[in-house]
């Protein structure tokens, strides 16, 4: 897993802030998640749209660890809900996508991100997201709506997980050109 702390702060520094590298990286990953969720959409009758925003959650989790996956995935996706006018869904999305990024980041980076670990991460993280949405919709919108949403969410996780996996490998080559992954 990538070390997220940046260079060590000098000891006389009075402020206890996160390093600027982390602020910049998390800001960019969050904005990227929101932008991708909002722009790359496939219209659907029920929740309005499929999006490939999932892929950015998995990408952040696999490339920068579970913390990035949880924070950037959760907040980025919730912000997209807010800005598209699905505000009351934002708290649910925050939990669903945050859990997805957290689980995918922990499981997907076992053994330095072996292929089976990545697939386990997508499977477990995706299950968290699908289950959270299903039960939340069951409680708030009724069983019927939750049931109609279920296949859409499963498809979204499959597509997003696949894209996120390939994206994290492609970007790994960019970040470290000597690595043999391709």
């Amino acid at each position, binding site marked *: 897993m990538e070390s997220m702390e940046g260079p060590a702060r000098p000891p006389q520094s009075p*402020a*206890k*802030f996160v390093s600027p590298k982390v602020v*910049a*990286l*998390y800001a960019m990953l969050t904005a990227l998640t929101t932008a991708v969720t909002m722009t790359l959409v496939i219209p659907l009758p029920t929740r309005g749209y499929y999006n490939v925003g999932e892929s950015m959650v998995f990408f952040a989790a696999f490339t920068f660890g579970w913390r990035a996956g949880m924070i950037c995935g959760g907040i980025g996706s919730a912000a997209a809900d807010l800005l598209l006018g699905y*505000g009351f869904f934002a708290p649910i999305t925050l939990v669903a996508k945050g859990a997805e990024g957290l689980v995918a980041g922990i499981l997907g980076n076992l053994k330095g991100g072996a292929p089976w670990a990545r697939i386990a991460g997508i499977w477990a993280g995706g299950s968290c997201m699908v289950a959270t949405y299903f039960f939340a919709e069951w409680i708030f919108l009724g069983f019927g709506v939750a049931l109609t949403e279920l296949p859409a969410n499963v498809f979204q996780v499959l597509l997003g997980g696949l*894209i996120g996996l390939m994206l994290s490998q492609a970007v790994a080559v960019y970040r470290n050109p000597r690595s043999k992954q391709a």
Partner: protein
Amino acid sequence: MTGFVDLFTESNSALHRMDPRVKIASVIFLSLLALIISELGYLLVLAGVMVLLLLIGRASFSKTMFAFSYVSRVMLLIVVLWPIFDPSGTPVLLEFGPIKITGPGILAGLATAVRVFCLAAVWYVLMFTTSQRDLVRALVKLGLRFDYGLSLAISLRFLPTFGATVESIKDAQRARGLELDRGGVAKRARNYLAVLVPTTITALKTADTLALALQSRAYGARADRTYLRELSMRAIDYVALVVVVAAFALPFAAKYLLSMPL
């Protein structure tokens, strides 16, 4: 559905001038209120209050319609699907096989649809009348750490930029023959990759530059930082806060302490 419609509308209504912290608290309390009420009549009253708030906030008609286009679909789905999965209650109106459509089931579906309207509308009031800058400022004042708040503010700032980046890369790849809406799952995933890899690498490069910019502007040099604009609660903000808390607390007490039907 695509593109960036900023829900916030510049105006000078009473709700625009209200302290954003009070508005965030109102969203929470009014959402909880909508969740504890289950009688259709009272929910309709609450929905009327939401419409009134939208009018006070001078919500623009086109943005309201844009936002409600999704919620109206969900409400329709609930009204149609709820009675099918809720066979409780006595006056059975229709029965075929295992499916029973009952009077209380239909009423419960309608009530849930109105509740979803209330839950959605209260967020619109917040988003229509509060700028993103004010939202982040309020969150920081409510106890979010400054560095996280800065990260959030930066990400909101870069959102339209990345949106434009995604669109232009998509156009560039389309000009080379990329088809985003054809093929099976694996083919589609590979096609989206042609857009997402350049976008991501652009974003990571921006992150590097941004980190340098933050460092060169002495980010985090002092813990006791000051702010250019301070939020201050006016008398009217306190009144609004009391009204909202009472609007939640009184029905809550009536329902769960006095067990009145609400």
